[in-house]
C-alpha cells in the first residue's frame, strides 16, 4: 500500500503550535525531548554503576527522589513514541528500515548516525534543551537564548551539509 501523503506544513505547524499552547496553559511549561533522553541514559548508567551516577555533579540530583525517570518529560517522551506510532500506522508509514540516500550504505549511515547522535546529546546539554525545549518552546516565549540556539543550529547544519552529502543525496 502506498503511504498517505504528508500533511501541509503550515497546517501541521498550527496543530503543533496549538499543542504547545495547551502545554503552557495546562502544564505551565513547554514541550521537550532531549531531557527525557538524558534521564533515560542516566537511569541506564545508574543500573550499571549506581554510586558513580549518584555522585555525579550533573545527574546525581536526579536520583534523589529514587528514580531519574520520575520526571514529566520522560512521560511526554512516552507520549511522543505512542502518538508518532499511531500516526505512522494510520498513514501506512511504519517500516523497519535504515533510512538513507541512494548512494549510501547502511554501514556508513549508521556510523554517521552514531557521530551525529553523540553531538546532539552533548550539544543539547550545553544549550539546556533542543529544537523542542529551546527553539520551539523558548521561541514562542520570545527568549533570546532560543533564537541564539536556533540560529547557531541552522547555520552549523547548512555548513556541515556538503560534507555529508553522500549520506543523503
Amino acid at each position, binding site marked *: 500500500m502506498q503511504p498517505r501523503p504528508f500533511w501541509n506544513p503550515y497546517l501541521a505547524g498550527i496543530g503543533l503550535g*496549538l499543542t504547545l499552547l*495547551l502545554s503552557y496553559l*495546562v502544564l505551565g511549561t513547554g514541550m521537550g525531548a532531549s531531557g527525557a533522553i538524558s534521564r533515560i541514559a542516566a537511569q541506564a548508567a545508574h543500573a550499571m554503576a549506581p554510586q558513580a551516577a549518584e555522585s555525579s555533579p550533573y545527574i546525581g540530583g536526579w536520583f534523589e527522589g529514587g528514580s531519574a525517570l520520575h520526571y514529566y518529560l520522560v512521560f511526554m517522551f512516552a507520549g511522543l513514541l505512542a502518538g*508518532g506510532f499511531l500516526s505512522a500506522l494510520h498513514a501506512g508509514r511504519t517500516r523497519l528500515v535504515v533510512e538513507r540516500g541512494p548512494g549510501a550504505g547502511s554501514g556508513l549511515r549508521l556510523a554517521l548516525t552514531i557521530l*551525529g*547522535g553523540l553531538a546532539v*546529546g552533548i550539544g543539547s546539554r550545553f544549550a539546556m534543551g533542543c529544537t523542542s525545549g529551546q527553539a520551539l518552546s523558548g521561541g514562542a516565549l520570545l527568549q*533570546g537564548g532560543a533564537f541564539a540556539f536556533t540560529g*547557531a543550529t541552522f547555520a552549523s547544519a547548512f555548513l556541515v551539509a556538503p560534507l555529508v552529502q553522500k549520506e*543523503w543525496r
Partner: protein
Amino acid sequence: MNLFEQGLLDGPLGFALSLVIGALFGFWLERAGFGSSRKLTSIFYFEDFAVLKVMFSAMVTCSLGLHLLAAGGYVDLSALAVPETAVWPQVVGGLVFGAGFVTGGWCPGTAAVGAASGRIDAIVFLAAAGAGSLVFASLYESVADFASKGLCASCSIPELLGVSPLMGALGLTVVALGAFVGATRVEQWSAARRSQ
C-alpha cells in the same frame, strides 16, 4: 493555576497530562513527515523547507495565542516555566547540535517519532544521543563555568528591545511570513535547477 505553578508537574496528574500532550506532539510531527530523516535533512540541501515552515508556524501560533491571552488578562506569563537563556553555551551547543542534526539526520523529538515508525537509524541515534548526554555529564566539572556563562532568568527579545511582549509576538509573525515567502522561492529555484 497551571501544574508547574502548583508544583504538581512531577506527580501522577502531571505525568498523565504530559503523556497526552506528548502524544499530540508526536502526532503532528509524524503528520508533517518528520518521522523521516531524509525529509528532515532535505532543508539543508535547499530542497524542502518543511522544517522551517512547521517550526515557524508552530512558534507563531503558540506565541500569538499566549501573548493575546496574557494581554486580555487570561494568562499570567510570570507563572510559566521559561526556558533559560545562557547565550554563549547556547551558541556553542547549537553549533555542535546543528552538525549532529545533519550528520545524524534527527533531532531528539523527531528521532522518537522515527523510532516509533520503525526507522533503525532513529533508534541508533537515540542511543547515541543518550551516550552523548552522559559524556557531557562526565565532563561537567570542567565545563560547568562555561555552561552557565551569560545565564539570565529572563532574557526575552521584547525586554531587550523595550517593547511589549505582544508587539514581540507580532514582530515574530512578520519575520515568519517573510521566511515563508523566502523559503518557497528557494524551493522553486532549487526545483528548477534540479530539473535542468
